């Protein structure tokens, strides 16, 4: 459904390029919930912006390909791309629940957005949005409300309703549950899962919150320093992580039983100047000489797992 090939998204600066996304390849299958995890500054949001071609100067797409249903989005002209956005791929940007216009009723904002991206008339748009509010579990009266009259969780539901209004096949959600209360977070995760289960929407879920991934996604990619270091089924990532960064990340999360947790010492490198070789070698307890010189390639191990680490040799076995 979605295939990203060696995507590089850089930001220009007087010090040189910030290589925020620096050679990411991944593929999302139809009907799955695919997670992208990683800590702040690893390039998650830039990756999403790159996929949707929403990068604005000083950012630019250096190279790579993004295939959506066989079409390379990076080669489309702007008007055709606009047709695909929202109607085929839709996007829930980070913090979007706070970007609703405070002086317009929900109805006007929602219908405006739909009319802009489709051939619907105002009345049709209203009918569509009413139906989608039902899907996200909001009453119709919400249409007559102003954003400040709704709670954060309800505003986020409104955003989701607008995002799915034109029946997209792929929804990309960037940190959709961040900054909400736990009770609301959980009900939103359930809603996102329902969208897939009941409406067949493919979902790309971007979050720094590993617990949310554990509860929602089928497969996930772990990003570090502008690259994907590991891809696997969620259960394997949590129970049998392979890349040293994934291992340490998993062991740094407090669990319910009070087992000791360990952090990852050191400072994440800067996108202006990624370390040579493997980008994690500066913090990796298993680093070898080769890690400081050559960047490890992504290889396949035990069937479906992808990992980029020199500990795993040519044959896909541990050296």
């Amino acid at each position: 459904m979605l295939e990203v090939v060696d995507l590089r998204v850089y930001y220009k600066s007087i010090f040189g390029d910030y290589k925020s996304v620096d050679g990411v390849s991944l593929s999302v299958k139809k009907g799955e919930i695919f997670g992208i995890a990683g800590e702040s500054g690893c390039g998650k949001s830039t990756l999403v912006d790159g996929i949707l071609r929403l990068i604005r100067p000083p950012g630019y797409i250096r190279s790579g390909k993004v295939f959506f249903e066989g079409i390379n989005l990076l080669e489309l002209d702007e008007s055709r791309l606009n047709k695909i956005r929202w109607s085929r791929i839709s996007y829930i940007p980070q913090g979007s629940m706070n970007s609703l216009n405070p002086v317009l009723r929900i109805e006007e904002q929602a219908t405006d957005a739909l009319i802009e991206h489709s051939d619907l008339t105002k009345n049709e748009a209203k009918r569509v949005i009413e139906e989608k509010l039902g899907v996200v579990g909001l009453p119709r009266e919400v249409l007559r409300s102003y954003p400040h009259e709704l709670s954060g969780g309800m505003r986020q539901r409104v955003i989701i309703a607008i995002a799915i209004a034109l029946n997209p096949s792929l929804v990309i959600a960037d940190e959709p549950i961040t900054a909400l209360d736990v009770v609301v977070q959980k009900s939103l995760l359930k809603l996102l899962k329902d969208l897939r289960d009941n409406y067949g929407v493919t979902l790309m879920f971007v979050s720094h919150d590993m617990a949310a991934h554990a509860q929602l996604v089928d497969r996930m990619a772990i990003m570090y320093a502008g690259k994907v270091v590991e891809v696997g089924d969620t259960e394997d990532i949590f129970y049998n992580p392979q890349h040293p960064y994934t291992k340490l990340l998993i062991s740094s999360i407090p669990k319910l039983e009070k087992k000791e947790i360990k952090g990852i010492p050191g400072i994440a490198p800067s996108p202006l100047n990624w370390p040579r070789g493997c980008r994690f070698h500066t913090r990796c307890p298993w680093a070898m000489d080769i890690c400081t010189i050559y960047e490890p390639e992504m290889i396949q191990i035990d069937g479906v797992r992808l990992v980029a680490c020199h500990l795993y040799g040519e044959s896909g076995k541990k050296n």
Partner: protein
Amino acid sequence: MTDHLLKFDNVSVIFKIGGGLGLFGVKRIVALNNVTFTIPDKPGIVALVGESGSGKSTIARLALGLLRPTIGQVLYRGREVSEWIKSNKYRFRREVQAVFQDPYGIYNPYYKVDRVLYLALRKLMHINDSGHAKSLIVDAMKTLGMRPEEVLGRYPHQLSGGERQRLMLVLSLLIKPRLLIADEPVSMIDASLRAIFLENLLELKNTLGISCLYITHDLITANYVADEIIVLCHGKIVEVGNATKVIREPLHPYTKLLVDSMLLPDPRAGRTIEAASIDVHRLSELKPEKGCVFRYRCPYAMKVCAENEPDLIEVGDGRRVACYLYEG
């Protein structure tokens, strides 16, 4: 001598909004309603949990003397906090230290981060010799597993949020406060550094006997570091008890809801989002004017809950709960 470090005694905070020129109605917002709790004078971490708007940060501000209670008293070692600030400010600031969500504001962006540490040593500890100060700083950083050469001499923007936050703990180690008031200290830090911060917090408690009021919305980290948990709902304490017990066996329906809503970092742990079923779709999520603060969302709400407010009562095992299900 007193048996407590910090004591909230029937504290209420009421904010008034509007009412300009007496022409408009004044709106009263009860941020805290009759809050009573004690942090005993022995090393311990007390977690204060609740959703946004529950009054958590108001409690932090009261404890630090940044806000005065409308009704009731906030006592630090037997004396009112406002009195400490008036008569013995430096001593109070040394003994009760704040750790905020993002400590960026603590640092002056034009100075290196070291300055905060040197200033604190000079003003609060009267250490004027910079060589001596430096060796204390380096030792403190090493104790908390930081590498001084990577942090000292840098400007605030050159450090990560986690690093800036841990420097606050280094400061604690230097000035050895008795009590830390930590308001959402890890909510902006990445998981890999959050773990180190939490370990450091435990270390300060275990080696230096520094107590902490740990304010958070996150039950999992509360469970990890805290000895006791206080649950706050709409400005009212609804449950208090041993951390592990509160999470294993929550009594108050609100605590149950919070515990059920925890997102467990474990894909095999039931994928419990299936079970989430609370009516969050109602248009008004306002708190009731009368009766139990949680009754609009409570699956067990009874007639009495609408009429009166339940008191926080002892239910044995050192636990207190404010719910009619446990009365009589």
